[in-house]
């Protein structure tokens, strides 16, 4: 176990290093920050001073080493635009993104589970067919377009929900959250629904196939034969057993939900990490791009590691030492 853990950690470190190199070379070798950051009216002296201040006069490998050395100490450079540490800038925006992603996940489970359960228990009813058709639509609908349509219907035509920003926030654990105020929740609903559409479809399909498989199991037949009410069989015996795969997949999907929030945040002007990265790409604010990518890469490595470890705990058949 310890050996496996150490090997995985070493692997993760190598991936981080490789990604940092790819990201750095990708961002710094293409385009010229000097042209964007320094006013075209600046004279030669000013230009050179600015280039020196930004460290852009050094050879690329030296810039990378400096970057790496600082990154290890938690310094991922200063934003060219905001003149603030990039890491701090992103961490400030993180709660908003996390709130949105968790909200969306929550909604996916809340809506997807009952629908999937129904579709699994009555696979031939008209309602189930409608649900399954809806889930194909959920996979096919482009997220960003649905977001626009939501705004059109609920914000423009009906005027029920606000379409931009986080609304009023309240302080909790030293951070500002939207879900604690009425206004904040009103702002959260549409982006969360938008982001959760794909996940709802996923949960519906997983639950449905899980239910259909579980219903054929011997222990369900036994529970029925024992004379338990259908209610109890469904909610205790079937439901509990399909929960494991659903929860695992939903947890696994959290990372991609955070990644996909880039789109939702852009549409609803939700001030999270995703909006920040799009804005930064558009003005070539390199330290922020690099910092964002490094944080995301780290997040994914941690999530993947956690899932691997969790699997082996949940399912003893998965042997960690595995392939070797």
């Amino acid at each position, binding site marked *: 176990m310890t050996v496996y853990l150490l090997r995985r950690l070493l692997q993760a470190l190598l991936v981080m290093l490789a990604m940092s190199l790819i990201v750095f070379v990708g961002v710094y070798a293409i385009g010229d920050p000097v042209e964007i950051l320094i006013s075209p009216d600046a004279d030669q002296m000013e230009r050179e001073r600015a280039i020196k201040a930004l460290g852009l006069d050094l050879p690329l490998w030296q810039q990378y080493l400096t970057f790496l050395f600082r990154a290890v100490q938690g310094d991922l450079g200063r934003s060219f635009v905001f003149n603030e540490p990039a890491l701090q800038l992103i961490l400030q925006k993180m709660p908003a993104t996390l709130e949105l992603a968790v909200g969306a996940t929550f909604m996916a489970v809340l809506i997807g589970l009952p629908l999937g359960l129904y579709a699994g228990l009555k696979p031939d009813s008209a309602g189930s067919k409608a649900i399954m058709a809806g889930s194909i639509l959920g996979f096919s609908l*482009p997220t*960003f377009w649905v977001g626009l349509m939501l705004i059109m219907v609920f914000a423009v035509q009906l005027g029920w929900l606000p379409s931009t920003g986080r609304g009023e926030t309240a302080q909790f654990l030293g951070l500002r959250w939207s879900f604690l105020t009425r206004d904040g929740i009103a702002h959260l609903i549409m982006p969360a629904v938008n982001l959760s559409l794909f996940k709802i479809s996923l949960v519906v399909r997983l639950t449905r196939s899980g239910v259909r498989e579980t219903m054929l199991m011997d222990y369900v037949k036994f529970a029925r034969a024992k004379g338990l009410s259908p209610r109890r069989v469904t909610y205790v015996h079937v439901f509990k057993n399909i929960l494991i795969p659903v929860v695992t997949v939903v947890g696994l999907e959290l990372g991609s939900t955070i990644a996909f929030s880039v789109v939702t945040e852009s549409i609803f002007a939700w001030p999270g990490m995703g909006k920040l990265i799009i804005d930064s790409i558009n003005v070539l604010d390199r330290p922020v791009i690099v910092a964002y990518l490094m944080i995301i890469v780290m997040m994914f490595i941690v999530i993947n590691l956690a899932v691997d470890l969790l699997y082996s705990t949940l399912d003893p058949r998965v042997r960690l030492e595995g392939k070797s």
Partner: protein
Amino acid sequence: MSDITADTVPVVALVVKDETPFRRFVSEFFASKIATSGLIVFTIIAVLAILAPWITPQNPYDLAQLDIMDGRLEPGSVGGSGMTHWLGTDDQGRDMLSGIIYGLRISLTVGIGSAFIASLVGASLGLLAAYGGGRTDSLIMRLVDLQLSFPTILAALMILAFLGKGVGNVVIALVIVEWAYYARTVRGSALVERRREYIEAAQCLALPTRRILFRHLLPNCLPPLIVVGTIQVARAIALEATLSFLGLGVPITEPSLGLLIANGYEYMLSGKYWISFYPGIALLVTIVSINLMGDHLRDVLNPRLKK
């Protein structure tokens, strides 16, 4: 089968004629109404896109044909030149119907083109991994794992942040994020096929490796590749639209459906819905028709579901 009788056609020919895998596949595909309608809708869309210059009422790229006075007309209204704009016009006075058909052209080209290149790259690497085994295999599969552990949108975003906008760059980004799906699929089926006698026979004939890979192994790995390919085309089209919507995809001079939708975004808040709405419908119909085909192809080509 009924009109072919034993005395007119030799028995062997009868078997060959009726039971080729391809024929069986075609008849099974068309047995499903949903899949057939998906194919029909997709064919119509593709024909529209190919014929765009000849069937659209207006060339949306020809500035001489545009009149800014016709800007943001409602669907069905008649413009200054006496033309009826059935789906309205955008802020430049461009006929939306023409814009959508031209946009479809770009979306389909990028989607199908990138899926095709990605399948070539992915299938070659997948075959190589399965056939080469050992280090080659583990190196390629590590790369695949790495690629698949990151969400496609994030990887594409990163690549476009490096490369900048442009149709070519979008295709490159899509190929880079998609090849892994093909590689994994082909490797899976090639690992099984590799142990078959016909490969052994080919090896005994001392055929060159390349010939064995592409003439013997690949054709037998095609069915799952076709399924993945179909679904990936839909995903590529959706991803391209998303990237273009975010302003990182195609340039403004070659608007795909995603960019058309993005153009209508700011007018949406003032109730001018059609600039974003109709291109979205076109995008949705395209993606759904491909997904319906892909969903059914998976069932047809999956031997485990055969009765």
